[in-house]
């Protein structure tokens, strides 16, 4: 059965159309005026204004390696992060510490530590799994590069982002 949809009966004012046009123009003019007077909140002007001060504490940015207060790379090359990493972005080549090293009882250190930032999904599992609290997700979010090779963060780059981490477990110190 066909249903007849009744058209709304327009009043005389609606039919001559002009009040609606003027009303619409008043609305657009109000928006225009509020923008000119700076009353409307607009998008962040990105390269000049950065996200940095607006980021929440739990923000997960680029992963980075940290040193402890005595300058030692905290990573002991156990490769747990390499195994847990869902997109397999981490590649570690472990090395053995020489016997005259101050921290010889640590035994291993990362000879090479690469994170492919094209693959990284910023999930934070490496941070979660690390028994040495050596890898952290920092707040860096603008990771750019001109080539694929540029996008691979090597050990120096990761340490540069990470810096020194204080006030966490120091289990390889001489006191222990």
């Amino acid at each position, binding site marked *: 059965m066909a249903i007849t949809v009744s058209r709304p009966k327009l009043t005389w004012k609606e039919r001559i159309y002009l009040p609606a*046009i003027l009303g*619409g*123009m008043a*609305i*657009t*003019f109000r*928006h*225009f005026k509020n*923008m*000119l007077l700076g009353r*409307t909140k*607009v*998008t962040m*002007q990105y390269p000049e204004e950065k996200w940095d001060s607006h980021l929440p504490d739990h923000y997960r940015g680029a992963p980075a390696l940290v040193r402890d207060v005595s300058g030692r790379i905290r990573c002991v090359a156990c490769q747990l992060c390499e195994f847990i990493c869902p997109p397999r972005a981490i590649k570690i080549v472990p090395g053995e510490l020489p016997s005259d090293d101050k921290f010889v009882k640590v035994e291993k250190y990362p000879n090479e530590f690469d994170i492919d930032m094209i693959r990284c999904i910023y999930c934070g599992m490496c941070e979660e799994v690390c028994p040495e609290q050596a890898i952290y997700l920092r707040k860096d979010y603008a990771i750019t590069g001109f080539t694929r090779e540029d996008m691979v963060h090597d050990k120096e780059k990761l340490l540069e982002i990470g810096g020194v981490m204080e006030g966490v477990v120091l289990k390889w110190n001489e006191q222990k």
Partner: protein
Amino acid sequence: MPYFLILTSLMKIIGVIFLIILPMVSYSVYAERRVSALIQDRLGPNRVGPAGLFQPVADTLKFLLKEDFTPAGVNKFYYWLAPCLAMVPAIATIAVVPFGSSLFGVPMLIADINVGVLYVFAIASLGVYGIVIAGWSSNSKYPFLGGVRSTSQMISYELSLGLAVIPIFLLVGQLRLTSIVRYQIEHGWMLAPFIGDWTNPQKWLLAIPMLVSFCVFTVAIFAETNRLPFDLPEAETELVGGYHTEYGSMKFALFFLGEYAAMITGSAIIVTLFLGGWHLPVPSWNGGFHWALVDGSAPGWRGIAGGLFNIATFFAKVAVLLLIFIWVRWTLPRFRYDQLMRLGWVFFFEIALVNIFIAAIILAYYPV
């Protein structure tokens, strides 16, 4: 003497086109983008130069450097001809518009011909050929539909465009645009009866048909220049890009420039016919309050300053109208095709006709 005339005319042509119209076209594109952004709570182009003011330069460079691509299936001759046909009439129309009083004793218009408005209508209606030929020669469905729509739209609205200005000629008795401006200086602008001899009741009565004329004429200019709410020839949401879908680089830019040049010319004609042209009365106190006329006829630097002031006044009025064009575009939705035709043939045509009779009756009972 002919040499002097030719030389000054050439200087005026070059000056008007390259120093006024083309910069105005590019900056009206910029204004369109900025104003539309502000209306929509955005910021618009603000990167190139201070507040994005060099954006037109960047756009021009981009258009010039793009590959000039010609699709395989097009009719080459007409495909190349169409952008020129879209641009030229828009610029040629400005020749008869008086854009200032005089500067160094030279009248500030390119050609003072006695059929002024007829020339404007004749040339401006050629603009449709650019669109139709573009639509047809592109050998593609969407441009073709855009071209067809454009033809019928322009024909429908040219009628009311022509009829809307007849009350003015009933009043002034001449088609020459300088005479119309001169009349408005002496008797007040067509739309503002309080300037000039405001105690004359005939003027106040005539302001009613003049207002109707102004509205019909302005709407018809909107339709002539394919601006929204009448932008059916290029309706992006229905016809991809309309008649210029198959165009790119500088050829597309010419269509774009043509559209904005037509807007400027249309505004210039509205200003000349209804808003007093280059005239702006300056209040002065000379033993009693009266409106002083500033123009380029005074001797020395006062004349030069007056002439420049008149030119600035004219283009300021044009700029205000352009802003209204932009404002309307970003407010109103597009008309459906049958609504457009109904509006043109059933409403504006009749309103313009009745308006002529009202103006004629007023003129018959209250002769000047």
